């Protein structure tokens, strides 16, 4: 069979049910193979949309996403999703077409050095040099993307090779001698961590994106005692946002309670987290009294930014049950945490997340998120874009379960939201999937509305329209003497008309008194909906750790 038909067989063997892509000259053979493959292909309108859709699919389902593009511009359009997937450890396989082998290196038509361009932003990449290599490469790509610390893998396929006739034998063994992730966690270290925890009087669990795939185990661990839990923006949903042991989000726009708790903690158990600068703020003053247990599958994360006293390398899913058992076996004195909880409760009481609501019909952005929480009964899968709306969504939508919150955390990619929501809905059709976006971000991948309309992908988009690149405006206001420079987006475009042009339903909401009901209506409308929600223009996200400051100096 043709190498591309073998490719389809491999995709099916990997359990791939859907891929997102857009064809071109160099992947014509692949697209021909879709005819008989029995794999759902969704035609996107821009490869970046396809890449983010594959990410959204992967984040929503925990399975490997697949995105396709042709050579040259198709591949370069995938660069942002590839980098985004790298930063947030999302398992996605990117299949790019490449010019035929005799043209490689000659600046052939639509030639780009895809492997070279993407090298710093992939977990791994492969240029196929012989058609017989293709099947094994595909299985290796999936294996690498899915295991260890997940991430993007690029397979670049020259068009002539993809047409070659090859004998196809299913491949069941993937052996990569240079790739053997440690998964189980060292038992001695686990025991040590349990002891440290049993002796701690001010412990905090700090859970990152890596704990999303170990949410059940995390809850079991945290509730084996009254261990307080905070999550990073990537970890939200790994621990229920309504649980009494929940402190709220950590970091720059996290709750005071969470940040103060970290600041005063004597032991921090970091799980699948990487001590990003948006979390630590001023590194030298981060958690000054704490010892660190660091659980991560990537050994390079251990002690990268903050030295770990007890590192444990492996899957949180495997380590946490053992840690819980060891901890229980020590029969720690639960009373020792009373004082700590006292302190935490007092922060909670003094510093709840609040905002000053309008006295008229004006919709405050924070209220918009609360209204959405109410209208969706807290049950939607929420995909966010990047900016103020992302932070407000993270703060005010209390995520109850893992994979309910999908956002671009590491790279902070505007334009992520809509395609990610599309991918999430395709992967989890039974879920209500909403996209919270900004008037700026939405315009960076609006074209995917056409994909949603054409394929009946039922996403509900809520634009928090403040007429500004709001997050940048906030920084200019607070740290650059309010000298606004190119952050005003005006009243353009008319999002209702735009939605209609794309075959979606457009709505506009301006009154807070009817907002919940309006949103319910949007949610009940069939097919993709875009709601242009007009909110207060110059509201700021608080609380905030200002740049260069420590957590205890939060403002707002």
């Amino acid at each position: 069979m043709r190498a591309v038909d073998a490719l389809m067989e491999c995709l099916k063997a990997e359990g791939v049910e859907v891929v997102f892509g857009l064809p071109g000259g160099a992947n014509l053979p692949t697209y021909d193979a879709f005819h008989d493959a029995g794999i759902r292909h969704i035609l996107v309108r821009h490869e970046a949309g396809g890449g983010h859709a594959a990410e959204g699919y992967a984040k929503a389902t925990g399975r490997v996403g697949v995105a396709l593009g042709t050579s040259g511009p198709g591949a370069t359009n995938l660069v942002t999703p590839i980098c985004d997937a790298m930063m947030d450890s999302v398992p996605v396989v990117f299949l790019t077409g490449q010019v035929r082998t005799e043209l490689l290196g000659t600046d052939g038509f639509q030639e780009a050095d895809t492997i070279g361009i993407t090298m710093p932003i992939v977990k791994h990449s492969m240029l196929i040099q012989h058609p017989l290599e293709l099947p094994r490469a595909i299985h290796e790509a999936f294996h690498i993307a899915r295991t260890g610390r997940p991430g993007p893998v690029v397979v670049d396929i020259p068009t002539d090779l993809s047409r070659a006739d090859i004998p196809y034998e299913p491949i069941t063994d993937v052996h990569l001698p240079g790739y053997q992730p440690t998964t189980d966690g060292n038992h001695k270290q686990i025991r040590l961590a349990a002891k440290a925890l049993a002796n701690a009087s001010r412990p905090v669990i700090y859970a990152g994106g890596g704990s999303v795939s170990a949410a059940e185990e995390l809850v079991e661990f945290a509730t084996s005692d009254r261990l307080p839990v905070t999550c990073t923006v990537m970890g939200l949903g790994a621990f229920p946002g309504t649980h009494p042991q929940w402190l709220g989000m950590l970091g720059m726009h996290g709750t005071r309670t969470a940040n103060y708790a970290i600041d005063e903690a004597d032991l921090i158990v970091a799980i699948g987290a990487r001590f990003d600068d948006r979390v630590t703020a001023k590194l030298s003053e981060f958690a000054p009294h704490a010892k660190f247990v660091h659980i991560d599958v990537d050994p390079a994360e251990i002690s990268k930014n903050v030295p770990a006293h007890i590192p444990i390398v492996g899957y949180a899913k495997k380590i946490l049950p053992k840690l819980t058992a060891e901890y229980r076996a020590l029969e720690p004195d639960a009373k020792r945490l009373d004082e700590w909880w006292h302190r935490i409760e007092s922060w909670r009481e003094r510093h709840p997340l609040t905002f000053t609501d309008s006295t008229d019909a004006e919709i405050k952005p924070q209220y918009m998120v609360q209204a959405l929480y109410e209208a969706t009964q807290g049950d939607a899968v929420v995909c966010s874009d990047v900016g103020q709306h992302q932070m407000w969504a993270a703060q005010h939508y209390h995520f109850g379960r893992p994979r309910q919150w999908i956002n671009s955390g590491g790279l902070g990619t505007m334009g992520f939201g809509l395609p990610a929501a599309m991918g999430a809905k395709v992967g989890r059709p039974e879920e209500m999937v909403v996209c919270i976006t900004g008037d700026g971000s939405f315009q960076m991948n609006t074209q995917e509305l056409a994909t949603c309309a054409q394929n009946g992908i039922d996403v509900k988009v809520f634009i928090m329209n403040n007429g500004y690149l709001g997050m940048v405006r906030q920084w200019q206001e607070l740290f650059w003497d309010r000298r606004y420079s190119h952050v005003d987006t005006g009243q353009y475009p008319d999002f209702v008309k735009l939605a209609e042009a794309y075959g979606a339903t457009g709505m506009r909401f301006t009154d807070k008194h009817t907002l919940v009901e309006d949103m319910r209506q949007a949610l009940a409308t069939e097919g993709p909906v875009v709601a242009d929600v007009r909110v207060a223009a110059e509201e700021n996200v608080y609380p905030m750790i200002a740049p260069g400051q420590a957590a205890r100096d939060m403002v707002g």
Partner: protein
Amino acid sequence: MGEPGTKEILSLAELEAAGSFRTGRKHILSILVENKPGVLTRITGLFARRGFNIDTLAVGPTDDETISRITLTLDGAVQSIDQVTKQLHKLINVLKIRDLEPTETMARELALFKISSDGGNRAEVMQVCEIFRAKIVDVSKRTLVAEVTGTQEKIDAFERLVRPFGLVEMARTGEIAIARGRSET
């Protein structure tokens, strides 16, 4: 140092100071990699990206034709050597890394020196060569080429001695290394 995103102005001195906290001893990393295209680029790219500095680099085959050995020397960077090796380990094609202990390692480098040498100083140049067991591999009217092997320090010393004669050019391979005794590198 100033925080990104704020309007605080940074002095160049501050910037330079922040980038220069590399100290400590030299490291020799012996890295076994799959002999596949682009592997060297991945490694050097990783160094550039993470702000690590390569001093010398030598690549060659091993006794197994599917595996190549890369020998890298790094200057100091003690604080981050751990990060270097961990990040290298994440490259799928990297099979094994050893941070060789200087005292338990045989390290050698080869260098070619083209030295100005007319009739007047030729005897003196040849004497230095002899002391260093350097081989004269080419002689012309005005120059001679000496081949030296040895540790980096020995080659540095040779360079210091012949430089006053007039060093036309020099080529060094970078060190290759192997562990002493029975243990595998």
